[in-house]
């Protein structure tokens, strides 16, 4: 099946968007660093369950996420801790804490698995949100491909800032030399414990927003209908509504 053809779209969709989304769907279906293809596609499905999950809605409205008990609306492929983490990332991310991640790590959801599930969940969500913004149906999920996770862990990792380990600011060398030049900002480092998660979001962000290189440009962009100020107005309003300090 050819994904993201946008044949049914009433609006012309730039070819680069369809291509980036197709490439990510292919990545999604394959084994990752810590999850199988089947588990990764199941994580994508949980993103969609999270949006309509009654328990998530009740928890989001509660004063504390721990003050309500219940069960998620979910599939049956993933462990409950993985399901809960995906639902939290999508529906109640601002109340995720270090102790939540540490407790998960002590009980079977490792830091590496957490980072990979965040990477999968947020990219699927950003593509689904693009569709929803245009009134398009969500793309059918890909068929999982067979194989085992690589369990690859980069060498130059530190646990100095944020909730999870990351590649050091000057540590994008060797196998990770393509991730960033010299030094970089925390937002790029955030998912670097699973380098392919970072590569995937850069690839999709390059089409949905801007490439890393283009971020130092502030005028018009060839092939884009929005200039930089218009992009930043949309970005700023979405971020502010989501109460994003970053």
């Amino acid at each position, binding site marked *: 099946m050819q994904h993201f053809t946008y044949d049914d779209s*009433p609006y012309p969709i730039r070819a680069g968007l369809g291509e980036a989304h197709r490439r990510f769907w292919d990545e999604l279906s394959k084994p990752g660093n810590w999850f199988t293809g089947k588990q990764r596609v199941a994580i994508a499905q949980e993103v969609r369950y999270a949006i309509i999950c009654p328990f998530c809605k009740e928890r989001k409205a509660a004063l504390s996420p721990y003050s309500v008990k219940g069960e998620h609306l979910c599939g049956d492929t993933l462990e409950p801790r993985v399901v809960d983490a995906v639902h939290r990332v999508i529906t109640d*991310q601002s109340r995720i804490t270090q102790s939540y991640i540490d407790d998960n790590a002590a009980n079977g959801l490792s830091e590496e698995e957490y980072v990979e599930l965040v990477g999968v*969940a947020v990219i699927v*969500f950003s593509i689904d949100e693009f569709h929803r913004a245009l009134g398009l149906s969500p793309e059918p999920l890909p068929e999982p491909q067979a194989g085992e996770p690589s369990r690859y862990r980069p060498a130059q990792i530190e646990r100095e800032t944020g909730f999870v380990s990351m590649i050091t600011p000057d540590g994008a060398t060797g196998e990770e030399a393509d991730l960033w030049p010299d030094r970089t900002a925390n937002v790029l480092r*955030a998912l670097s414990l699973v380098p392919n998660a970072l590569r995937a979001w850069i690839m999709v962000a390059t089409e949905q927003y801007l490439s890393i290189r283009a971020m130092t440009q502030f005028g018009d962009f060839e092939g884009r209908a929005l200039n*930089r*100020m218009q992009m930043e107005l949309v970005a700023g309003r979405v971020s502010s*509504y989501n109460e*994003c300090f*970053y």
Partner: protein
Amino acid sequence: MLSLSAEITESDVNLKMINGDENATPGDVAHAGALMKFAEAVASRDEEQLASARSALLEAAGAEVLVDAAAVAGNFQRMVRIADSTGIPLDERNAVLSHKIKSELDLGRFATAQHTPPAGLKRRLKSLIAKPMAVRMFRKLQQ
């Protein structure tokens, strides 16, 4: 980045639009009001509001603008979740550059502001010097 973009391109921008102020003047940002409402409708997940904002942006600016605005909105629905799920603080360099605007927009009220150490005298002083320097540097890069 909106503030920086405006300074670098010497454009007039009303930053109150970031907080959804409907009375904010659009300045030099084309279709500012329609873009602001569309972005807010995507983030709010109010489907009725979204349908209305989508139609208004389409009518005002055309299909290509609508598609690119949807792409950027989807992108930033992701970025907030990466930042919050990993608890990353704002890098000191970015904190210095954005100190004034974060104060003006009162972004310290957000719960996730606690991930970044509060601004001390040093950051406030550095922000007075660093922002104009950054604007000059980026202007040179555009040439």
